[in-house]
């Protein structure tokens, strides 16, 4: 499809002017129709052995069943794609991640993903100044991008990751309309505070003497009240509004 390079620049232009994560979500969904991927996942890499998918994902288009399986099996800790992000500044196909040392250990993750329609994938890593990494993975039944398509997805990935990061870290400007009060309950705020310092739902359940399921419910309802599409975003939004500090 020879006209796709211009599409890539159009998508990047939209990402550069994105004001909220939903804008990015929309552009990445539209871009899938051009580049042939079915879904995508954007997130930060786990910074501790206790972190799980929901602590890391910024934007997820993954099938819900795969998310549940991935979370339950703590695949985020052994996924070869995640391991490869740490070693690479250049984008790569998921199967290329199996070639790195230790990559074979996490092969089960890629094998299980196939059952959920994620047969092939392409990942754009981003290493941040000051430390930490993020990644944006595109996946689908078939994804065999040409060199030009890889370059286009690289550019789209970088701009999507960069835009998301800017949105999440933006401070409240004096001109902003104060948002409608979120009316979070005391428990919801407590759970967000612990999440903000890197605690997982399980750890929070221990700290607060609640079941993990209850903690997850509090985090889900807090996210809904804050208009956030992910746990990562709900923490950022709560910080932004001064609900937690």
């Amino acid at each position, binding site marked *: 499809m020879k006209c796709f390079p211009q599409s890539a620049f159009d998508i990047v232009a939209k990402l550069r002017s994105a004001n909220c994560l939903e804008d990015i979500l929309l552009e990445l969904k539209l871009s899938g129709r051009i580049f042939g991927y079915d879904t995508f996942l954007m997130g930060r890499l786990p910074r501790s052995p206790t972190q799980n998918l929901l602590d890391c994902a910024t934007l997820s288009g993954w099938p819900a069943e795969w998310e549940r399986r991935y979370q339950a099996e703590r695949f985020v800790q052994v996924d070869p794609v995640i391991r490869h992000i740490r070693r690479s500044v250049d984008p790569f196909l998921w199967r290329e991640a199996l070639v790195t040392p230790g990559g074979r250990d996490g092969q089960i993750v890629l094998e299980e993903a196939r059952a959920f329609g994620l047969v092939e994938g392409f990942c754009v890593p981003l290493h941040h100044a000051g430390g930490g990494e993020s990644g944006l993975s595109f996946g689908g039944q078939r994804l065999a991008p040409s060199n030009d398509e890889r*370059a286009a997805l690289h550019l789209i990935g*970088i701009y999507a990751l960069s835009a998301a990061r800017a949105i999440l870290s933006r401070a409240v400007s004096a001109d902003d309309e104060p948002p409608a009060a979120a009316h979070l309950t005391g428990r919801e705020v407590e759970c967000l505070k612990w999440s903000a310092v890197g605690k997982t739902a399980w750890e929070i359940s221990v700290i607060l003497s609640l079941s993990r399921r209850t903690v997850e419910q509090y985090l889900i309802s807090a996210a809904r009240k804050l208009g956030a599409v992910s746990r990562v975003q709900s923490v950022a939004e709560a910080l932004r509004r001064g609900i937690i500090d």
Partner: protein
Amino acid sequence: MFTLLSGDVDTTDPQMANRIYAFRHAYFVEHLRWEGCRQADCRERDRFDGPDSFHVLGEKGAEILAYARLLPTTRPHLLSHLYPEILQGRPAPTGRRIYEWTRHAVALRMRESAMATAFSNVVSGAVAYAAEALDLEGLLVQLHPALIERLTETGWDAEPLALPVKYEGSSLVPVYARLTDQTLQIAQAAFAAWPGAHLHVPRGSMCAAATDVPVPVLQ
């Protein structure tokens, strides 16, 4: 700590010019292994250096901690004459108020320090202030796609000019980085956070942006 020097430093202050080209050789040839730039006299100066270019120099005493070279786009520059193929046929903006940001260097000990990000922001700020002093609209930059985030984080409005390509083994993408109010605000904040940060602009540099001349074909 930062100075904007005109390219005619080669004639007005040969000792300073010598220090600059020696620093560039140590950094780009010895450290980054750009063998194509190696010179017998260990001074890295190429065909694009000249009286119309500018140096942004960051020093602490006699030590050069940071450097960038700005080339006018109304004369031969890297994107027009070294590797125009990376544009893949797409256009790139040129003009009196657009320069090319090249030879960006930060001394190793600053890049490895705990303050590496803060200093990197200061260097970007110095380039932003230099661009403002020269009354520029923006800068052409060619860089690894992963560094686009550094540009956007420091407030530049970075527009890609072509898809990334492999150039000498590395991924390279040409970008047009517009200078915005945000770039200058972030520059101000970075300078405020770094004691002693200041850009010295010698009188006469402010009007020194290149005039409109046709770009000659190099032999």
